[in-house]
């Protein structure tokens, strides 16, 4: 086995598929840290050229992590749909890029081949694409999911309202929710990261949102982003659980680090569906991912972080999630060093997820030790909006006071909707108009009187 390519009189050799994929990847700190990155720019391009010549069929014969030792690989192989793959079976990775970009390849064709794609094929073509390619193809994909709102319709861009509070204080969380609703944010989900991952905290927060939902008749779906085992306990105690959340990784070993197996996720899906809180055929799972998580838990198995990220999506699609998002800049500069690396990774993840059939959102974000700032986030946010990103986060003032990082704000959501003419989910839009938060034309009114029905949440005021 092995691959080689000659460039400028130098012959570059790559021992196996995982090495070829790693060397072809745009430079990022995490792959350097893992010792997997190309030695120089020429080797990187030589790897891309070798990759472009590789038939897609090859990916069905060589796994990056052995079938025998990894249940994610087994899932990828066992769920592969040969009939869906047939129309592109004769293509190389390079020709697949051209097929994806072709004007005759539309949303229907993309959706039809999706079950025939492995994450490694998608990661491979991603590595030979520039940003505009990633935007063009992702913008063509249509992925629609439903709970109380319909997410991902053409011309729509949804938002997750993220009202975190360092003490999980329900009133503090409620204050941020009300602020966000006045900005028309929250149609993807109201999703709270709890500071404390325990079932009592989870139930206290879910009960508060349920009270708001029933009092206001808002078509919202909520999620407390606790560990899946915490959600299972809450479901056992009959808590009003809409979405079950879990962080995913792209290897069995790294998933073990997250305390999950596919069997546990199967159990969670069954439990969430048993509550029948959404219309039949609706979607009840919410997943988060992010490049570098496998390396950070020493479970990367010698595979580059972008390929592993695509493998997360193979796990996610098994569960028909309502929402998936890549928390792209949260992990820190040892994995994605600066705004340029974060921007590329965000668009890669969005593209790969969409192509694999997922309702892909992006937490456009950074930490204070990354070489990035709000300007970088504005650029990525705008690119993702053009690429048809399913949803983004809405954090008050872009400052998450619990997780201590910067994401996108309610204002950012307003911005991207205005400049790109994007609208919220139709059910949510109708509710905003019915309550008077927006006017009949969908313009937000910012009238505090509209908060009144929600005031019982804050006690006796």
């Amino acid at each position: 086995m092995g691959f080689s390519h000659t460039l400028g009189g130098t012959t570059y050799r790559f021992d196996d598929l995982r090495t070829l994929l790693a060397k072809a990847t745009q430079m990022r700190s995490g792959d350097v840290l893992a010792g997997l990155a190309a030695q120089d720019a020429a080797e990187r391009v030589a790897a891309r050229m070798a990759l472009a010549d590789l038939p897609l069929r090859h990916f069905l014969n060589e796994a990056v992590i052995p079938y025998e030792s990894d249940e994610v690989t087994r899932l990828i192989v066992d769920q592969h749909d040969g009939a869906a793959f047939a129309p592109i079976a004769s293509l190389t990775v390079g020709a697949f890029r051209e097929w994806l970009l072709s004007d005759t390849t539309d949303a229907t064709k993309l959706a039809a081949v999706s079950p025939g794609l492995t994450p490694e094929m998608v990661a491979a073509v991603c590595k030979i694409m520039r940003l505009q390619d990633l935007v063009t193809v992702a913008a063509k994909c249509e992925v629609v999911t439903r709970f109380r709102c319909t997410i991902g319709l053409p011309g729509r861009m949804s938002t997750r309202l993220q009202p975190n509070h360092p003490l999980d204080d329900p009133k503090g969380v409620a204050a941020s929710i009300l602020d966000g609703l006045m900005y028309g944010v929250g149609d993807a989900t109201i999703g709270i990261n709890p500071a404390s991952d325990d079932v009592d905290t989870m139930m206290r927060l879910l009960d508060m949102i349920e009270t708001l939902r029933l009092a206001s008749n808002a078509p919202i779906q909520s999620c407390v982003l606790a560990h899946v085992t915490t959600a299972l306990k809450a479901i056992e105690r009959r808590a009003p659980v809409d979405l079950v959340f879990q962080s995913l990784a792209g290897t069995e070993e790294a998933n073990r680090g997250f305390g999950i197996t596919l069997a546990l996720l199967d159990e969670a899906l069954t439990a969430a569906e048993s509550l029948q809180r959404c219309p039949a055929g609706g979607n009840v799972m919410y997943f988060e991912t992010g490049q570098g998580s496998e390396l950070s838990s020493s479970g990367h198995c010698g595979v580059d972080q972008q390929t592993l990220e695509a493998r997360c999506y193979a796990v996610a699609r098994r569960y028909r999630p309502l929402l998936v998002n890549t928390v792209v800049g949260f992990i820190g500069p040892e994995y994605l060093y600066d705004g340029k690396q974060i921007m590329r990774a965000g668009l890669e993840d969005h593209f790969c997820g969409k192509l694999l059939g997922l309702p892909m959102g992006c937490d456009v974000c950074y930490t204070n030790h990354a070489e990035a700032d709000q300007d970088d986030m504005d650029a990525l946010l705008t690119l993702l909006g053009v690429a048809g990103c399913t949803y983004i986060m809405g954090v008050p003032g872009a400052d998450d006071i619990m997780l201590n990082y910067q994401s996108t704000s309610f204002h950012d959501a307003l911005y991207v909707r205005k400049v790109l003419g994007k609208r919220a989910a139709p059910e949510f839009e109708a509710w905003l108009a019915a309550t008077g938060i927006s006017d009949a034309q969908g313009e937000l009114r910012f009238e505090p009187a509209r908060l009144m029905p929600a005031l019982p949440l804050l006690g006796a005021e």
Partner: protein
Amino acid sequence: MSGADPTKLATNPIDDWTWLSRYTEARIALGRCGPGVPTSAHLGFQAAHAEARDAVLKPFDAEQFAADVIARGWHALAVHSRAVDRATYLQRPDAGRLLSPESEALLSEPRALADIALVVADGLSSRAVQVNALPVLDALMPLIAASGRRLSPVIVATQGRVALADHVGELLGASASIILIGERPGLSAADSLGLYLTWMPRRGRVDSERNCISNVRQGGLAPEDAAKQAADLTARMFQHQAAGVSLARLPQLPAPEHGGS
């Protein structure tokens, strides 16, 4: 930060629900100009980010810090990790966990035995160390001295990660280590110090084998309280010969001052 700040309300139009800010420190009711954030809130955010960035990037003056320690009558040694500069430090956590060859040689020289290796490192906020490390030491040193356990010189490290204390502890043959280290700055606090305690500090220890005391700063956990917690935890480590998750599961000492981690 809180909505009570009248300067950020001067912009038109105002979000007229500023009273909600009594329930959270989150940046709510900011007002807006079109889709944009009013200028005062917009620049206020930049000021907070600038403070955090400067805390990450400003070099730690290890020599000065060591001199301050020595001026108090304690011993100190300045060391450096294998991360040669800040950019390397941020991208190569592995380099920040090991001492440079020169520092390794320095700590390998024969010296008095120590039960506890005490390390101060810049971590992700040099400012946290400059502001809060000496107040912690002022309170901690007498408590350790009273316990009768032998303390190493204060090892003052530049470009250090938490696990640098494992390498230090290993070279000094210490039974336990305490490292004071700058935490990753947030927008609301850029000067938080963290304390990590490890039993039998040796290279290769993992995070679950440590106990952590975090958010040590004025306005967070006071340095004096952090020092008391660290002294209590140290006593428990020596009693149970363990740290980390396994120590957290063990019963408390009789009449502890604080629980700890």
